[in-house]
């Protein structure tokens, strides 16, 4: 890339060929006003606020879309430009209902800020007073078209980052409006995922989230804390706005992140709503059918007494949430595993994780990292969905897949026991009847791709297996197998998204990695696998609390300690195993039913917004969870509670060892060095 130099308002500004005038200006701290522009989205130059004058050019140019050229002399703030910008603003104000005094976003509005900055003390154009619809059909998101300035940020974020294309534009000129699903109401949309990205980018009061509309303007909030969403393995970065000690809204960080600064429907709503949930604020001890309040001392004494007894009888177990931070997991390990020598410690989604760990193990042993950062899906030209349902498991992954297919032109292959969750955009939808057929298909495909690659892609020369044979074993048509092969062989960089359900059979996981290796799915950080490992810090549990073999439910235990973050419901199997234990201690921030009903002792715990620490995300990064609001009342941090408990138990736990996922993202060899392995090896 060639370096270029521009003169902007007399300042010498360096840039790179291909930059726009706006990019060069911003990187050199020259301010140019913008309204429709939003970093990370395709610039469209529709609002004309960023107009600049370029020497020897009679026209004004939009800085956000005009490529910068070497030697350009640019003026950004002449009287002519200021006047022109003000006229644009006045036209916008005259066009629709932009009367600030009855708008929920007044004071939190980019249009208002811009007009005030341009000294707009009146509107010189006649108002149109055109009446548009206020679409209030959706439970959470409202679109008041009367406030719309047609900047199209919402349409762009919906298409470019979320990939649902729910929003688009209809009609022309003054009558143009944002439209949902070719004319449906938003509440009736079949494509909207309720992620709220459109409202996050809306510069005016057009698209608002009911829940946050009157809870405080962003500017009026006391603090904005950057943290991480604990709900799924993607671990999106979030900004939590705090006002008078409560969370006023939660937003994604910035659109220039790979995830587009979006939050999914889970993060957007679960996080702020959880701050309103009823808390367990003091320790409680069960007495018959109800709980009575107790002091920490009394509660922990009772816990220690029961624990010690059960521990001596080797009848104790510990179950902790995989939404715990690395630091919290370290504390559990140092007390229960290292201190007490317990083996019965696990996380709720242990079975899913063990499957992935076992399936990945032979490849990890080879010194390669068997998975890649989730956003690499965006770099792939062929996305293979292996029994995943990303919109349920990790919705931002679903966005990556949709954007990969619709924007980047990747093909989408579904290999699963159920039809593709991306029905309308799937190129090949291979649905096998049974999991056994599914693994045979993956295994067969790996063999065929390997053979085809070895023979230079000539199917005639493929000797070992034929498509017909694979089809027969998988219960599919030969045509289907040939189609999948075609997609895989045409792809330079396929990526495989592994659903959590697959991991129950480690052989399927290993077979999938084999297929990825055969296809040459190599990314700079690892093999092109994206395992949907359930929750925020599932990866962090791997070297810590995750048990080697499942034990839960195998034996009726005398004592069970359960640590839950109360954010995701516990699975049936865990709940039934917990309820089968004689004495149950539940430490949880919220009255999370039905879990809390099973407890003999309830201990308060800090909620996600009261804790800090780190998560290992499938984005390939350790991300920091920060304290948004300090804990109140009797809520105590885990470290201090476990310290007291260990004292009562008479053990001195050592300091937690290395960071739990310290070596998880490491690899000795490049992914291309990976070899396929025999599935028998995994099955044993």
């Amino acid at each position: 890339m060639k370096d270029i130099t521009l003169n902007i308002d007399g300042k010498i500004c360096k840039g790179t060929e291909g930059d726009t005038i706006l990019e060069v200006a911003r990187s050199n701290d020259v301010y140019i006003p913008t309204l429709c522009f939003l970093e990370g989205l395709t610039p469209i130059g529709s609002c004309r606020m960023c107009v600049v004058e370029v020497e020897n050019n009679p026209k004004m140019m939009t800085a956000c879309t005009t490529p910068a050229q070497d030697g350009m002399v640019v003026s950004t703030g002449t009287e002519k430009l200021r006047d022109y910008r003000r006229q644009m603003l006045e036209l916008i104000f005259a066009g629709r209902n932009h009367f600030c005094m009855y708008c929920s976003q007044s004071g939190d509005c980019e249009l208002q800020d811009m007009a005030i900055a341009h000294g707009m003390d009146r509107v010189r154009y006649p108002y149109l007073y055109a009446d548009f619809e206020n679409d209030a059909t959706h439970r959470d998101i409202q679109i008041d078209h009367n406030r719309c300035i047609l900047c199209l940020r919402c349409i762009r974020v919906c298409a470019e980052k979320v990939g649902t294309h729910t929003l688009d534009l209809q009609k022309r000129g003054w009558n143009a409006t944002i439209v949902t699903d070719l004319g449906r109401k938003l509440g009736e949309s079949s494509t909207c995922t309720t992620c709220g990205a459109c409202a996050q980018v809306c510069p005016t009061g057009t698209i608002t989230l009911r829940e946050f509309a009157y809870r405080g303007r962003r500017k009026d909030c006391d603090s904005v804390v950057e943290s991480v969403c604990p709900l799924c393995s993607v671990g999106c970065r979030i900004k939590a706005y705090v006002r008078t000690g409560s969370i006023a809204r939660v937003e994604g960080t910035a659109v220039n992140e790979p995830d587009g600064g979006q939050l999914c429907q889970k993060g957007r709503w679960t996080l702020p709503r959880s701050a309103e949930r009823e808390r367990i604020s003091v320790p409680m001890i069960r007495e018959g059918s109800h709980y009575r309040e107790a002091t920490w001392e009394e509660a922990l004494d009772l816990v220690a007494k029961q624990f010690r007894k059960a521990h001596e009888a080797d009848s104790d177990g510990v179950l902790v949430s995989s939404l715990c931070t690395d630091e919290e997991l370290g504390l559990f390990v140092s007390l229960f595993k290292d201190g007490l020598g317990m083996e019965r410690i696990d996380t709720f989604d242990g079975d899913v994780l063990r499957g992935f760990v076992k399936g990945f193990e032979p490849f990890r042993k080879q010194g390669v990292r068997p998975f890649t950062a989730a956003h690499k899906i965006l770099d792939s030209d062929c996305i293979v969905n292996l029994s995943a349902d990303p919109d349920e498991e990790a919705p931002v992954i679903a966005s990556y897949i949709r954007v990969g297919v619709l924007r980047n032109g990747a093909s989408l292959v579904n290999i699963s026991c159920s039809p593709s969750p991306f029905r309308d955009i799937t190129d090949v939808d291979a649905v096998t009847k049974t999991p056994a057929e599914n693994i045979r298909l993956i295994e067969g495909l790996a063999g065929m791709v390997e053979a085809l690659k070895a023979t230079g892609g000539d199917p005639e020369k493929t000797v070992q297996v034929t498509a017909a044979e694979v089809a027969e074993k998988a219960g599919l048509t030969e045509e289907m197998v040939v189609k999948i092969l075609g997609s895989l062989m045409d792809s330079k960089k396929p990526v495989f998204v592994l659903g959590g359900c697959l991991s129950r059979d480690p052989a399927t996981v290993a077979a999938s990695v084999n297929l990825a290796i055969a296809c040459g799915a190599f990314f700079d950080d690892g093999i092109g696998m994206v395992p949907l490992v359930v929750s925020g810090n599932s990866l962090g549990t791997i070297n810590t609390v995750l048990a080697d073999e499942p034990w839960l439910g195998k034996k009726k235990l005398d004592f069970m300690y359960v640590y839950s973050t109360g954010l995701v419901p516990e699975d049936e199997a865990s709940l039934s195993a917990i309820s089968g234990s004689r004495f149950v201690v539940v430490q949880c921030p919220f009255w999370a039913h039905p879990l809390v009903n099973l407890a003999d002792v309830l201990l308060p715990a800090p909620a996600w917004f009261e804790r800090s620490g780190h998560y290992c995300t499938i984005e390939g990064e350790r991300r920091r969870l920060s304290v948004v609001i300090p804990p109140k009342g009797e809520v105590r941090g885990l470290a201090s509670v476990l310290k007291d408990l260990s004292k009562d138990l008479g053990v001195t736990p050592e300091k937690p060892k290395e960071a739990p996922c310290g070596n998880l993202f490491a690899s000795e060899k490049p992914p291309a060095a990976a070899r396929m392995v025999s599935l028998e090896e995994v099955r044993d």
Partner: protein
Amino acid sequence: MSKVKVATVWLEACAGCHMSFLDIDERIVELLEKIEIVYSPIVDGKKIPKATVGVIDGALGNDEEAHLAKEMRKQCDIIVAWGDCAVFGGINCMRNFSDRECALKEAYVDSPSTVNPEGVIPREDIPHLLPKAIPVDYEVDVDVYVPGCPPDADTILWVFQELLEGRIPKVPSEKMRYD
């Protein structure tokens, strides 16, 4: 030196702008050493006398308000539009998105707090609604625009001080607000 004569009128608006004017608090004493309020909702006056500065608070929603605005323009040298209603039309413009009859029906018949079984809409002996509520400068020329709902007391005072210095002020961005 004689005091500068100021007239203020409250048209289609809430009392917010005049309240905001009173929010200049004790500084009003000093201001009143320099100006004389000759006509205003807060003084007694039946007719608009000649004045140097005429302040109009509120939009024009009926023919009486339009008439008063014209009277102000005739009697005053400098017209100041105070507040969002006078400058942009403000909240009164809510009725502009439907027609006049609709607004009358809503106000006199349909609103939940109204008891009017005969559905009578008064039309005689009261000012007639204009087809639309309009900003002041749709009807008369305005010299100074002070947007805000209401404008800050400090901004209102600043505008008077500038006028007393003989300047026609333009509210700068840092003193401007719309809500």
